[in-house]
């Protein structure tokens, strides 16, 4: 059913579960194999990409504590702690079997911790410009967040929620140039992973994708042409095309298939 969520009408439900003894909001939509979505530091935005994904997947997007107007949770203080919380959410709401995970930017960083520390939770990962991998200055003269900001204007939260999102992001250490834990964790992450980088990304340096392609044991890197950091907002159809192929076929997605063209 369609519900009102953050003043938008969407084909998704906003539900509440109990995680570690506290209420936890999440968004659910669609039917099919489960897909756990870890949102960006911009909060739980129901983007056109998620709408497309929900046509073939049962999408679960927990509202990470501190984001989207929610409260921080005691004891969840860093990205690793957030990944532990996500694992608890996943066991509580989705079940014990491993699921596919999609993380955008900060959510991608959380997903890497989840895959490293809770390998039994993750089947396959898609990471959109994950943060925390490699420190690097923004590229001058390029769009800062979106190549097509007009596509984002109806998605963004109100000023107070945006401010709280930024504070939560900072509280988890998301603003650090790079995540000191990741370098040691990456070689132990064996799940098939697709990293998607926008060719116009000016937030996460291109070297991040290259670093992951080199250091994750089972990683594919794809550039999304004409997309900024918010690739799923800039080019949702293209991103859906390659994501669907990878989620369905895993590493064999490199074999051409007209069904995914």
């Amino acid at each position: 059913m369609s519900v009102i969520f953050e003043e938008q009408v969407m084909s998704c439900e906003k539900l509440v579960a109990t995680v570690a003894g506290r209420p936890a909001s999440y968004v659910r939509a669609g039917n099919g194999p489960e897909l756990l979505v870890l949102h960006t530091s911009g909060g739980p935005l129901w983007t056109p990409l998620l709408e497309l994904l929900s046509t073939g997947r049962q999408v679960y997007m927990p509202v990470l504590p501190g984001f989207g107007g929610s409260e921080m949770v005691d004891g969840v203080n860093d990205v690793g702690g957030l990944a532990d919380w996500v694992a608890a959410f996943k066991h509580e709401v989705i079940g014990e079997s491993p699921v596919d995970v999609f993380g955008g930017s900060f959510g991608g960083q959380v997903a890497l911790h989840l895959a490293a520390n809770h390998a039994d939770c993750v089947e396959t990962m898609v990471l959109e410009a994950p943060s925390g991998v490699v420190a690097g200055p923004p590229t001058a003269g390029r769009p800062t967040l979106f190549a097509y900001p007009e596509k984002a204007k109806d998605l963004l939260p109100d000023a107070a929620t945006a401010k709280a999102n930024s504070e939560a992001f900072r509280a988890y250490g998301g603003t650090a140039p790079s995540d000191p834990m990741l370098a040691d964790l990456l070689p132990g992450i064996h799940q098939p992973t697709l990293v998607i980088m926008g060719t116009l990304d000016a937030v996460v340096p291109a070297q991040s994708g290259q670093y992951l392609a080199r250091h994750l044991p089972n990683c594919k890197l794809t550039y999304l042409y004409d997309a900024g950091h918010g690739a799923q907002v800039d080019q949702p159809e293209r991103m859906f095309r390659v994501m669907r192929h990878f989620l369905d076929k895993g590493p064999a997605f490199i074999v051409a298939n007209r069904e995914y063209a």
Partner: protein
Amino acid sequence: MKFGFFNLMPWPHYPEPPKVYPTPNRDYDPEIGQRLYNDYVDLLVHAEACGFDWVACNEHHFSPYGTMANCNLIGSILARETRTIGLAMIGNLLPLSNPVRVAEEYAMIDVMSGGRLIAGFMRGVPHEYIAYNSPPAESRDRQKEAAELVMKCWTEPEPFGWEGQHYQFRSISIWPRPIQQPPRVLMSASNEESATVAAQSRAIMAMGLIHDLKAARANVETYHRVARECGWEPTVDHVLMGASTCICETDAEAHDVFASALDYFHDTLMKPTYDALKLVAQAGYFTRQKAGASYDSRLDKVVARKSIDEMIEAGSIFCGSPKSVTEQIRRFGRELGCGGINLSMQIGNLPIPMVRKGMDLFHAEVLPHVRDL
């Protein structure tokens, strides 16, 4: 000033002007063609001994005026047959090719030649779009995307995929990768829009078919302005101009043989191409109204019945004795502020020995006077 020797590799034996596009190939004699390729390659190799800084090849399809369907085939020969001269492929038609294949073949030429490639990223003239059955309206978007993809193929250290508007590849890792990181790129800058793209791409700007020095100068200024806006400052080596060239012992001889060769080029070899342009316009592309400074408009101006002197004055050609050509090059360089000139010397049905003689005259009597410009 640096100089290139450009050979279109035309078919010089056409019995009479063909009337339609595409030119029927029944008049192509492959036995003669074999000897021609051999002689043309010899000329390109000879350019190194004549002091040219690069040799240039290009790509045309279904065309008796230029018989290189893939200039990389010639480029690979030159990589072996020459030692120091630059190899300018000007170039592969990016919107009509598989960009990954372009990246691979260019990388092979760069490696085989020890890093001497100048990589042309060309969009192609309208009739090429008929030849390869690609809608002309997509050409600019395809060009932009393909250029970015080729550059990624050359510079990415890890295998990567590409999900674009026109191109999708799941996992790319070209072998070999080029020596130059990345190779020098050259792009057409024949109008304001393409000059802008060349500057944004930090590519060498190249202009041929000049019909008016002031209009060409305006493109150079656009290129410099956009480059500055993008945060970089081009050198004179980033500005490359082209001109058809004929050098003989005397002005009278040069004027006479070049007039005849240009007549053959425009009236015979190019006729089907002009017809193709009309068809492209008839199909709704490149209309007179939209043409502005675009290809067909400029081409009309270049080929409009002008005398040799008028073409020299317009900056379209260099023609005459070594002394006259020296003066023409000086004026041309002064007006345009270019650091390189591509001399297209194998025009129409100019006899090969005459072209070779012109190259030798350039080396002995022109180059010493224009090298330090």
